[in-house]
């Protein structure tokens, strides 16, 4: 099995006529993603890679049912597109753009919470359920190089590192159930707790690897969730950026979430809390695969 996304998931593509979507729709289709329709304002009636395009989400939903909408929409228009999907009743939205204004994200996430919509992102590289489906840029042009089906759930704030650690697992002969890039921004929808909760219920996920970052209390909350019995399978975690703790001015970086504020958000604190919750914490990237192997009982 997998979480959130599989071969049956009916996917809507917002911004379907844009260059990024035109480049990535074929890679998603080839991988098995069930794309049911596209949306681009003013482009209703067009077709992209065999997919019918509508001018509004509502128009698309009159002809098709959708479980998930993926937004190939530039940062400054993502608020509008996400709100349109939420208000039209799409149950899950994956926001890919990097650099969305914080106030926009705040409004989208508030509306999503009220409507009960699952938001993945913003600043997410997408999702992948190996052998079944992928959305977003995850996996690039040769997804089989990085991903293969198997028992490990992967969740990462960094899109690049989530893909890279999946590749390291694949090379070691260990497959993944689902990979979710939750997004590198300060404010994101689904957090580690939300994703861990879903992996807990997925019988095929035997172990989870989580890749965190400095800033926010997201890893602290995951540690609390695990410690309180919300997630009972083995977890391997890596949180880079301890080096930054000794710097006078906190580095902001392109992941706005990676802001170390007033002690909370420091990687050393996150790693301590996760260890106390029984998580296997990797200090170096190369330790991840051996730790996963051990967790799976394949030492």
């Amino acid at each position, binding site marked *: 099995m997998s979480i959130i996304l599989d071969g049956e998931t009916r996917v809507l593509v917002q911004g379907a006529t844009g260059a990024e979507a035109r480049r990535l729709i074929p890679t998603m289709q080839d991988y098995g993603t069930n794309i049911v329709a596209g949306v681009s304002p003013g482009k209703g009636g067009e077709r992209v890679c065999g997919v019918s395009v509508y001018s509004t989400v509502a128009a698309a939903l009159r002809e098709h049912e959708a479980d998930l909408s993926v937004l190939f929409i530039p940062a400054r228009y993502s608020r509008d597109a996400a709100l349109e999907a939420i208000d039209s009743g799409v149950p899950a939205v994956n926001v890919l753009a990097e650099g969305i*204004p914080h106030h926009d994200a705040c409004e989208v996430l508030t509306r999503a919470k009220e409507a009960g919509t699952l938001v993945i992102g913003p600043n997410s590289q997408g999702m992948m359920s190996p052998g079944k489906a992928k959305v977003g840029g995850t996996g690039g042009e*040769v997804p089989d190089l990085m991903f293969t089906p198997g028992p490990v759930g992967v969740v990462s704030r960094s899109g690049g590192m989530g893909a890279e650690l999946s590749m390291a697992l694949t090379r070691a002969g260990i497959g993944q159930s689902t990979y979710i890039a939750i997004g590198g921004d300060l404010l994101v929808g689904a957090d580690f707790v939300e994703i861990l909760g879903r992996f807990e219920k997925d019988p095929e996920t035997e172990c989870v690897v989580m890749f965190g970052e400095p800033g926010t209390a997201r890893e602290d909350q995951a540690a609390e969730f695990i410690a309180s019995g919300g997630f009972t399978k083995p977890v391997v975690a890596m949180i880079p950026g301890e080096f930054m703790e000794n710097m006078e001015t906190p580095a902001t970086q392109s992941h706005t979430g990676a802001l170390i504020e007033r002690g909370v958000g420091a990687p050393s604190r996150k790693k301590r809390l996760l260890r106390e919750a029984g998580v296997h914490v990797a200090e170096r990237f190369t330790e991840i695969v051996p730790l996963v192997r051990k967790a799976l009982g394949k030492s």
Partner: protein
Amino acid sequence: MNIHEYQGKELFQKYGVTVPRGRVADTPEEAEAIAKELGGAVVVKAQIHAGGRGKGGGVKLAKDPAEAKQVASQIIGMTLVTHQTGPEGRLVKKVLVEEASDIANELYLSIVLDRATGRPVIMASTEGGMDIEEVAAKTPEKLHKIPVDPAIGIWPSTARRIAYGLGLSGDQVKDGAKFVANLYKFYDEMDCSLLEINPLVQTKDGRVFALDAKVNFDDNALYRHKDVMEMRDIDEEDPLEVEASKYNLNYIKLDGEVACMVNGAGLAMATMDIIKLTGASPANFLDVGGGANQEMVENAFRILMSDKGVKAVLINIFGGILRCDVLAEGVVAAVKNVNVNVPIVIRMEGTNVEQGREILENSGLDFTVGDGMADAAEKVVAALGR
């Protein structure tokens, strides 16, 4: 993005957020003229972005215009060192001259985005003028936190509740509530990431205004605020970081000797950690981004090489969406165009990695190729020749 105090106060006035009477001056003569206009005693405040100005000698009281001119002549042109500027300090170019107020009470008011709930939160306290974290730790009951629904904003009753929370009474409740409502409007419309008024003062003659203001704008939203963008003062920023921002490179200068060129913020942080664990120090954070092309890599090399502390370069690339061969071609062309006179170690992984490595090997350039992150870090530390 940060702006100066005087700029923040100018913007505040447009929104009806009350501030002391005053203006900015570039010269002691101007400071004198402003003091004359204001009448009575004035405060002369150095305008730099860093905090702790008062302790560093950048804020002075003057009883008359002649003294205002005299203290302004001391402050303008001084290199002000505070706990936030670093030992090199900042050159003061302007001073804000304001009426000195008869303060009855110092209060605290701020609006921030709460990461945990994903909503703006207004924080109010009667304990202004001091370190608010201390208030939060020692007397949490004195710090009121009011979450706001971003889609709705605040109601007059919310603003009144906050005014009462600030300990205001009588006619000042109305002024205080108006202040809170206008400040929230400013936060909302101007895309602030943080607004902190510490202290918010209540004067003996019954006025309420912002004595100091910390205003941070969300960089992602600056495209909506051309007027704020024009307030940028690049003298307050690191010159190399200003250069990097022209090319959309995410660069932060550090003090180490190993320059890092990496695509992706997560990988960059992991790279910096492993350099440290291997026994050296990173010279910078640099994320060339997911769509790094030759031009970006070339510009990145120019910036890295203009840091005289750099003794070696570590390039760490993961071709997750972009292909390694495309990235390798960019790196080779960039190194040929930029004079790189220190050892370069490259670690590359991802789509088309074999073709990428071949391009590096056949380039005729002197690259050391690392096999994995740990190996690359060891090689770059070895290249430092220690």
